[in-house]
Every structure is written in structure tokens, then in C-alpha cells.
């Protein structure tokens, strides 16, 4: 235990150093595509880790988190569209292409959406909760499909990534470093969060709501707060993804995207700090390796997922820990 307490931050720092050096390494190895792949891993890592707040720590199985991911993306896309056209959104909100505005806006709007969806969904639990979060996400999916003004089915092209003062966001490497910076801040906050009083409550609610009520905890408001925080994180990831792909589309909200996020969490390790990031890495690596062999790559991912669930008892994170020979 003492080794892992010391070792965890060291490993995290080593990984961070590697991630900082990555664009240069990728360049040197003649694999510039690697940088893009890792950027996607970081972004999905944020989304999956956000889902993990409710799924892993709180025990609330949300099957609709792509909704917040997609909303985050569309906030960037829609603000950009109005910036480009010049007419304000709803007649009074000016568009913008400044990341320092669009990113907080995306977090805020997805948080509000999570507040509404959570307030209604959290009146249920178990399978009903899974189905109702799924239903809300699908409703939003079809809403964006029908929004012809914002590209409907085809999605919304963002011609240029959002601007950041003093940075050249036309450079892909700069975008990568912006993603890395946001990811780093996100995981530092998350690390503080999982050791907080609030996380204690979430941890308890996952294990026994009955016990928590018996020591005086009104569960609903805490679950709702967790759901909102989780939605905000997913929205942040969506905003980054829209900038990275320069594209926002209904696909971001599709239920299969919610499923992918869940698979990443399970692959990496439910209820662990860095597990979802590891899960995102494994998922995206598998996707690119298997997809080059066969168009049925999802079957392969499915089989590996089955293996992880049946044999690793806690995903890649737990597997790695056991291989290194120490337990948490």
C-alpha cells in the first residue's frame, strides 16, 4: 500500500512527461498520426472519467452520457456558426470562436442539461434509470438531427478550431497541447474530488442507500449534484472533441457513443481515478488496430470486454496492478 501511495503520483508524472514529449517523439518515429490518436484518447478519457463519477463512484448506471458530450460539442459548433455568420443566437447571444468562452459555456450548458435530465431520471433507479437516461439522450439525438439550421443529420462543420490568446490553434500540435492541459487540470481536480467529503457520500450511496438514509443522508440532492458534475465533465470533453475534429454531429449523442463511454470505463476499471483514461487508451488502440484487420472490429472489442469483465476483477488498472504485484 505504501508503495502504491508513493508510486501512483510518480507514474502519473512519468505519463505526463511522456505525453508532453509525445508530438516530438511521434514526429521522430515518423508516426505523426499518433499525436492525433492520443488527443482522442485524452478527450475520451475525460468523458469516460466523468461518466465514472456517477457510474463507478455513485453506482448510477447512466446510459445517456453521450447527450452531455454532444451538447458540449454543439455549444462550440453553434457558437462558431453564429460567429461566422454574424447574427446572434436567439437574437441576442453573440457567437464566438474564443475557447476561453466556448469551453466554460459548453460546461455550463451541459451541466444545465444534466440538471434537468438528472432531476427527472434520479426519481427512478436500477433498470428504469438506465432506460430513462437512454431515452433522454435519444430525444436529444433526434432533436439535433432535426435542427436543419445546424446541419441536421450531416452535423456542423467548424472551419477553424477555437482561438486561444497567444496560441496558434491552426497548428494541430498546439491543439494537442491544449487538450493535454485541459486533461491535466481535469484529472488534478478529479483526484481532489475522489478524496473529498462529497465523494465519501457517493461511495456510501453506491454501497447502500439504506445505510446512508439511516445515518441521515438525503440521497437525492447528492446524486443530482454528482450527475450534474459528471455531465459538466462530459460536456467539457465534447467541446474539446468539436475543436479537435472541427466538427459536431448528432453521432456524438448517439446511444452507441454512450455505450462506448461505458465500455471504456469498464475496460479501464470502474470506480478508479485513472482507469477510464486507461480504458479509453485501450479502446481507441483496439479500434485502430482491429479496424485495420477486419470491419467486424467491434466483435473483437466485445470479446476483450468479456474477458476483462470475467477475469480481471477491475479492468486494466487492476490487471496492471496485479502484474506489478501489488494491491491497493
Amino acid at each position, binding site marked *: 500500500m505504501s508503495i502504491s501511495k508513493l508510486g501512483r503520483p510518480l507514474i502519473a508524472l512519468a505519463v505526463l512527461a511522456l505525453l508532453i514529449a509525445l508530438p516530438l517523439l511521434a514526429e521522430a518515429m515518423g508516426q505523426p498520426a499518433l499525436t492525433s490518436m492520443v488527443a482522442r484518447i485524452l478527450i475520451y478519457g475525460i468523458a469516460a472519467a466523468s461518466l465514472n463519477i456517477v457510474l463507478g463512484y455513485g453506482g448510477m448506471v447512466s446510459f445517456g452520457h453521450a447527450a452531455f458530450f454532444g451538447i458540449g460539442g454543439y455549444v462550440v459548433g453553434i457558437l462558431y456558426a453564429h460567429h461566422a455568420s454574424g447574427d446572434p443566437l436567439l437574437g441576442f447571444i453573440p457567437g464566438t470562436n474564443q475557447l476561453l468562452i466556448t469551453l466554460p459555456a459548453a460546461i455550463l450548458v451541459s451541466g444545465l442539461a444534466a440538471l434537468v435530465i438528472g432531476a427527472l431520471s434520479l426519481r427512478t433507479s436500477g433498470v428504469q434509470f438506465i432506460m430513462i437516461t437512454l431515452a433522454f439522450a435519444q430525444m436529444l439525438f433526434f432533436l439535433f438531427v432535426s435542427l436543419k439550421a445546424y446541419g441536421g443529420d450531416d452535423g456542423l462543420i467548424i472551419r477553424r478550431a477555437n482561438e486561444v490568446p497567444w496560441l496558434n490553434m491552426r497548428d494541430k500540435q498546439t491543439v494537442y497541447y491544449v487538450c493535454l492541459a485541459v486533461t491535466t487540470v481535469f484529472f488534478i481536480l478529479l483526484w481532489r474530488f475522489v478524496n473529498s*467529503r462529497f465523494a465519501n457520500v457517493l461511495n456510501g450511496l453506491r454501497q447502500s442507500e439504506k445505510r446512508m438514509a439511516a*445515518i441521515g443522508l438525503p440521497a437525492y440532492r447528492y446524486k443530482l449534484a454528482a450527475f450534474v458534475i459528471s455531465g459538466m465533465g462530459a460536456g467539457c470533453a465534447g467541446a474539446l472533441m468539436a475543436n479537435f475534429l472541427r466538427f459536431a454531429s448528432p453521432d456524438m449523442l448517439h446511444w452507441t457513443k454512450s455505450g462506448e463511454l461505458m465500455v471504456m470505463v469498464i475496460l479501464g476499471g470502474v470506480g478508479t481515478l485513472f482507469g477510464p483514461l486507461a480504458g479509453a487508451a485501450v479502446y481507441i488502440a483496439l479500434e485502430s488496430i482491429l479496424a485495420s484487420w477486419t470491419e467486424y472490429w467491434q466483435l473483437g472489442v466485445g470479446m476483450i470486454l468479456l474477458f476483462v469483465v470475467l477475469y480481471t476483477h477491475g479492468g486494466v488498472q487492476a490487471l496492471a496492478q496485479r502484474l506489478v504485484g501489488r494491491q491497493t
Partner: protein
Amino acid sequence: MNAPILAVRGLVKHFGGLIATDSVDLDVLPGQIHALIGPNGAGKTTLIAQLAGELRPNGGSIALDGRTIDALPAAARVARGLARTFQITCLLPDCSVRDNVAIAVQIRQGHSFRFLRNAHRDEGLRGEAETRLAAAGLAGRADEIVANLSHGERKQLELVVALATRPRILLLDEPMAGLGHAESQQMIKTLRALKKDVAMLLVEHDMEAVFQLADRISVLVYGRVIASGTADEIRRDPEVRKAYLGDGDEAC
């Protein structure tokens, strides 16, 4: 006498055709242990669940300190000073013994909407949890995961956790069930020391413990209170002997 801390009037609960609580009247006075005895399936646990606010009664009323709490959910009743233990222990299985107590302390203190400060290093939580565990003789088990505890230790921990909410009235659902003789004696001592500060409704099958501890005893059969009185009155009550204590035999 002084006013009851817990007053139950005409409480009724149906499960379909089954009447689990049949117009129950019950008073628990401050500084007293009121035992509730009755055969298996009499409705003791069901009654406690209604008092705690986990189960909604079909009729009747419950008052705490003279104020009705019928509309309050379980968590709000805890804040008013009512706590319970479970017959089938209900703890946080993946958490350490210490954390099971610390979370109760944390919720009592409020301030659970804190997102970034490290709670595991919070001496206010750790310290109080450890003091309470030491008082219950569980100090050596503080780091153990609850899933690894023995049955007796879990029963003890149930009580420690309930006390960490600083209750004024405790509902105890068979705290001695499954304990060894020494553990039972320890529990009896603990409860007796507590009762001047915390009134108790004690559900228990161990008649020796009941007669040692209880100031008053009520007998529940098929959801109905068939007798209520002091230990001696209950021992002598012919209807109780027939229905519950076993006709003709000495009690316990």
C-alpha cells in the same frame, strides 16, 4: 411521569391482506429502555421501519418530542435525533470500519457539499471515529474492511454507527441476535450505560437481556400489542404466557 420522547398512536400497516401492524400504541420515555418482544413474524421489524421512516404506514401517527414526524423522510428523522440499527446488518461493505463511522460523523456535521478538500486527512472525522471505536472495543479493527468482520463485530459496529449520529432515541432491532454469551453481556453493559442519555426501543428475543435491561416491555403478536407493562407485570400476564412465553414455564 415525563412526556414520552417517542409516541406512537394507532399505527397500521397492511401488506396486501396481511396486517403487519395493527393499531399499535406505544410510548418510549426519556431515560428508559422500552423492550418490544414477540414471536417471529409478529411485525417488530416492520414497526421499526415505520418509525424510522423507511416504510410508510397506512394509518396512525408518530410523534418525536411531541411533534409529529409522519411527513418526514428517514434522513430527516435522523437529524431530529432518531437512529436505528438493523437486524440484518446493513453497513458499507467495501469501506473500512473507521470509514463506516466517519461517514456518519460527517453527515451529522453537515458540510458534505465539499468537493476538493481531502476528507481522509480530516482529523475531525478520523479522530471521532477512532474514539468511538475504541469505546466499543473495536479500535484494533479500524482498518479492516467491513466485509471481513465477524457477525458479532458487525452487530457492535451497527451500534457504534448509530451512536455516531448522536441520537436521543435509538431503535435497536435484535442487537444481541447471533452474539456469543460474552459479547451479549458486553452489549448489555453498553446499553445500560447508554440509557440515561439515549432512550431506546429494544427489539430482542434474548429474554435474559430483556429482563435485565427493560424498564417497560410491550408484547407484539400478529402486529397487535397484547400487553404492555413493567417486567414483572409482563412476566405474570397470563395472556402473554399463553401467547408467547410458553404456558406454565418460567420466563426465559
